[in-house]
């Protein structure tokens, strides 16, 4: 035989999925929310997203000395996710710094893809938020692009926002977080492809809802439910629960661990929202739970087949 055969370990069948294809799936899933961002916040939203993605991808390509700027697609996802957590019209340099920080501090110092302990986009957002709090809270109303406050602090002052606008996304907020509808649409795609499971988002959103219900101010059942629902829809919980907390690398790998992770995120988010200094706690909550992920994994190793329980 003239051709040499390939010898490798079994199995000899492999799934067609690759890291690149999965990252493309995630980008597709973020597409509806990105469209919503552009629709609501105009060309500034688009510019921010593009700038952030490019800055992240270029940084990664430079560090890894790779010619293909898209690479495995993970930098693009990080960049887009970061852009979605930025306010609608940040200064351009803020966006660029964010992309660089996300890739360098959030990812490459840990050894690159797969090794980052924390969600790179959230690391960058947290650093930006601490550094330039003013720029990071420059909210615009999506209707007329006038500066305004987001629903969460408004609610604290007693101003309510309609559920419909929260669901559609016609409320002030970060570029990608306002439209629950678009986020759910993209998440449905990820569910369909089997890239995320219900445990993290379910635990997260469930706890936010319940804590919103019982600690957000007592009242009649209807009020309590609406407060719970408000907390789920307002702010970054949807984006965080569906896209940030479910980030493979920085979340637990065991089924039980995932549920614990989601619940933990929910509790910390609500603690920050209800009792803390910051109006929103999603970033802190997910970063904190990222930090304890290795411990959660250790503690929740599944019972192996045939293990005799003592």
């Amino acid at each position, binding site marked *: 035989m003239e051709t040499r055969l390939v010898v490798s370990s079994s199995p000899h069948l492999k799934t067609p999925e690759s890291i690149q294809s999965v990252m493309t799936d995630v980008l597709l899933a973020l597409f509806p929310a990105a469209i919503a961002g552009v629709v609501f916040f105009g060309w500034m939203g688009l510019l921010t997203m593009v700038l952030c993605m490019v800055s992240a991808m270029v940084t990664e390509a430079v560090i890894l000395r790779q010619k293909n700027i898209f690479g495995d697609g993970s930098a693009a996802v990080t960049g887009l996710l970061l852009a979605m957590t930025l306010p609608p019209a940040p*200064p351009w*340099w803020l966006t660029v710094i964010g992309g660089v920080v996300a890739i360098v*501090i959030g990812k490459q*110092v840990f050894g690159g893809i797969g090794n980052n302990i924390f969600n790179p986009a959230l690391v960058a957002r947290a*650093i930006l938020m*601490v*550094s*330039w*709090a003013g*720029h990071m809270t420059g909210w615009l109303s999506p209707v007329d692009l006038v500066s305004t406050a987001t629903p969460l602090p408004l609610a604290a002052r007693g101003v309510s926002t309609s559920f419909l606008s929260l669901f559609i996304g016609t409320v002030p907020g970060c570029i990608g977080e306002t439209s629950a509808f678009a986020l759910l649409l993209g998440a449905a795609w990820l569910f369909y492809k089997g890239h995320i499971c219900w445990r993290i988002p379910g635990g997260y959103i469930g706890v936010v809802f319940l804590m919103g219900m019982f600690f957000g101010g007592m009242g009649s059942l209807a009020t309590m439910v609406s407060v719970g629902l408000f907390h789920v829809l307002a702010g970054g919980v949807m984006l965080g629960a569906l896209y940030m907390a479910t980030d493979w690398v920085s979340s637990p790998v065991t089924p039980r661990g995932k549920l614990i992770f989601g619940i933990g995120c929910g509790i910390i988010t609500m603690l920050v929202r209800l009792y803390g200094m910051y109006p929103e706690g999603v970033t802190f909550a997910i970063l904190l739970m990222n930090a304890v992920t290795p411990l959660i994994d250790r503690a929740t190793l599944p019972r192996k087949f045939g293990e005799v329980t003592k």
Partner: protein
Amino acid sequence: MSVMKDLSRGIIRDNAVFRLVLGLCPTLAVTGTAENGLGMGLSATAVLVCSNLVVAALRNVIPNKIRIPCFIVIIATFVTMVDMLLNAFLPALHAQLGIFVPLIVVNCVILGRAEAFASRNPVLNSAADGIGIGLGFTLALTTLGAVRELLSKGTIFHANILGSGYQPFQVFGFPPGAFIALGLMLALFNMLSRKFRLE
């Protein structure tokens, strides 16, 4: 000759912060500005030199078993003195450094030098070692302070460097920035020392 060697070694080659990674608490805590870093560095240097001198002088007197408590008492004495001096002559700096002045006493750099060097070497060498290590420590603290001050305020030693239009990278003024800045500087130092084959 060997005295000079003992003196120079501590500045870069055996730099307490960047090479030995000791004395991190004050390094991170008081380096919000270059000035504070310098102040802390010099205070620590003063204690280090004095304690090295005394330890080296008494090295044959102190029984081996209780040497550590003895060293600590010696160091603590000098720390208390520095504390009082700072309070008297530089009250503003003293307030800035806060609890970290008395905490010089537990700075592992100082105890480490007493244990590893001064207790085994003659007085002159020990003093030189103390000065070298102390200068290295001061250098590290001042550099870190300068970098953090520059990034978080746009100034160095309160002199405006980056202009009034600079949007300060405030995270470097806070605890997280201290960790991150030192981490990055340490990595840079590792890289440079590999390049110049310091090890």
